[in-house]
């Protein structure tokens, strides 16, 4: 308790004595508390706690939230070798709250509450620390069922953690995984399938975080979720070697505030092809190695016209066709590529602009030119005639 007037800390009691007459004049004085070796369960003195072969089951009927099979709080250098938690009605399989530098080998969660949680400490009246530099080797989170409020994996207010060999399957949760307010998290996924996040949530949501790296090689397959991976207000998120499959309507989406991320060797194998909104993300290897049979433009289409009116718009965000309904002169159409909206529609911002071309397929002799290009929009213009059908496409650069 770090107020400057502390005179005595009772080593065996609970009272801190302050010099007479000094503190009471500061009724709202700020006290600074430091976590020392004696406050937490750590390596000094002695060593961490070791546990092996943990096997805890519930009765599947527990309807009390906020409990866990195992909680470690303000603990350092915990070592758990093999832990499985099954058949719990609610609650959490394993939670670390302000737990540092711990290692867990072989975690298996099959519970209806939450799977694995890494968060700040909740006791002690003060936030001492998040759960930092913890390592998990081999994590199965399976068959959890809590679509109202359950999450398979939560990493929040923590940093520098490492998960290797994450297997997430058959869960029905509000979110399958949420990584929020964190930095430098590294998660290697070996299998992600048959999960259902409560609509319209993303299965894997990364919010207000930086340097989150998600690695495969893995499939990332939807069961009945609408949305795959959503990144919101985060920077330097890397998704590497994912094959996204299943029935998502949006496979990946970077939402407001996200930037400077990277998709590397991410293959969109969804059917029908799900939207990939990648604003602010560098897509590596798509250009060189992504070789689909066809590229189909999907997503909402936003066109506005001047000098004419248009109708019969079909196609997707960056390619389609329209018909000229009326003209009053040169017809100019502004194209604003839009990702499939789960949030309010947001324009895709290309790094520099859009290269577009358009053709009058009713009167091919009519030339339509691109007359504008900025990161958010492009314009095409020509002396099109009423009832002409125009096809167009744009590629961001």
């Amino acid at each position, binding site marked *: 308790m770090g107020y400057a007037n502390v005179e005595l800390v009772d080593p065996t009691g609970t009272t801190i004595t302050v010099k007479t007459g000094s503190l009471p004049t500061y009724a709202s004085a700020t006290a600074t508390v430091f976590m020392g070796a004696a406050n937490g369960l750590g390596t000094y003195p002695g060593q961490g706690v070791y546990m092996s072969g943990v*096997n805890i089951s519930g009765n599947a009927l*527990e309807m009390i939230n906020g409990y866990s099979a195992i909680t470690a709080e303000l*603990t350092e250098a915990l070592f758990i070798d093999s832990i499985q938690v099954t058949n719990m009605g609610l609650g959490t399989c394993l939670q670390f709250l302000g737990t540092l530098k711990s290692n867990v080998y072989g975690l298996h969660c099959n519970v209806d509450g939450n799977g694995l949680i890494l968060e700040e400490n909740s006791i002690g009246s003060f936030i001492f620390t998040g759960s930092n530099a913890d390592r998990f080797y081999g994590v199965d989170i399976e068959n959890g069922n809590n679509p109202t409020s359950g999450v398979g994996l939560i990493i929040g207010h923590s940093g520098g953690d490492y998960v290797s060999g994450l297997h997430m399957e058959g869960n029905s949760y509000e979110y399958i995984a949420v990584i929020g307010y964190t930095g430098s998290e590294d998660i290697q996924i070996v299998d992600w399938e048959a999960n259902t996040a409560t609509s319209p949530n993303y299965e894997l949501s990364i919010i207000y975080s930086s340097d989150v790296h998600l690695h495969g090689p893995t499939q990332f397959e939807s069961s009945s979720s609408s949305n795959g991976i959503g990144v919101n207000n985060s920077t330097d998120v890397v998704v590497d070697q994912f094959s996204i499959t299943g029935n998502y309507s949006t496979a990946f989406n970077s939402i407001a505030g996200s930037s400077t991320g990277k998709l590397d060797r991410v293959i969109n194998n969804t059917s029908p092809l799900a939207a990939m909104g990648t604003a602010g993300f560098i897509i590596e290897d798509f250009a060189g190695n992504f070789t689909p049979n066809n590229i189909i433009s999907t997503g909402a289409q936003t066109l506005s016209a001047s000098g004419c009116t248009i109708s019969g718009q079909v196609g997707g965000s960056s390619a389609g066709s329209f018909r000229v309904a009326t003209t009053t002169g040169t017809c100019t159409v502004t194209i604003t590529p839009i990702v499939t909206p789960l949030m309010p529609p947001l324009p895709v911002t290309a790094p520099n602009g859009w290269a577009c071309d358009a053709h009058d397929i009713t009167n091919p002799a009519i030339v339509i030119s691109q007359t504008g290009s900025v990161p958010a929009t492009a314009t095409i213009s020509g002396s099109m005639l009423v009832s002409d059908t125009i096809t167009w496409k744009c590629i961001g650069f």
Partner: protein
Amino acid sequence: MKLFKLVVLLLAFSAVANAQSLSSVQSHIQVQNLNSVRIADSFPGADIGAQINAAVVDCQADHIVCMIQVNKSGTISTPPELPQGFSLSFNPEGQYVISTTHAHPWLIDHSATSFYFNNAAFSYTPVDTGDNAIYIGKGIHPTVSVSTTPSITTVTGANRSLLNRRCR
């Protein structure tokens, strides 16, 4: 020569005695203490947790660090308390019910302790929000009171002297 015969006779007698001793070895030996190993089953207590704690007290009386072994199945309603350096091991074929309470949870609150659960089946049913089958940490919930007297008092929370309890 007489001395030699005496030595031979003594050796022969000793061999016969050892043979008789070996023939009387029991197939099962039930002991409470085996050096630094304590068998919790043999100590008094209303439940397995209490028996574990009784075994710990026995070790502390001898000023040694122990491995506490639990062989039988049963209920753990008294929170086991392992001091630093102690180990606890359960029977892999055992079945255990954790029925500690919200007020007295199973706290693992001392460093350098080892728990070998050995995949034995533990069942747990919480009764209150915030319950944990096992809580690792000090579990201190201090509430600080700044009074008009020259002191700051933690109204609730553990006594600091309990932290990192060692073998005494």
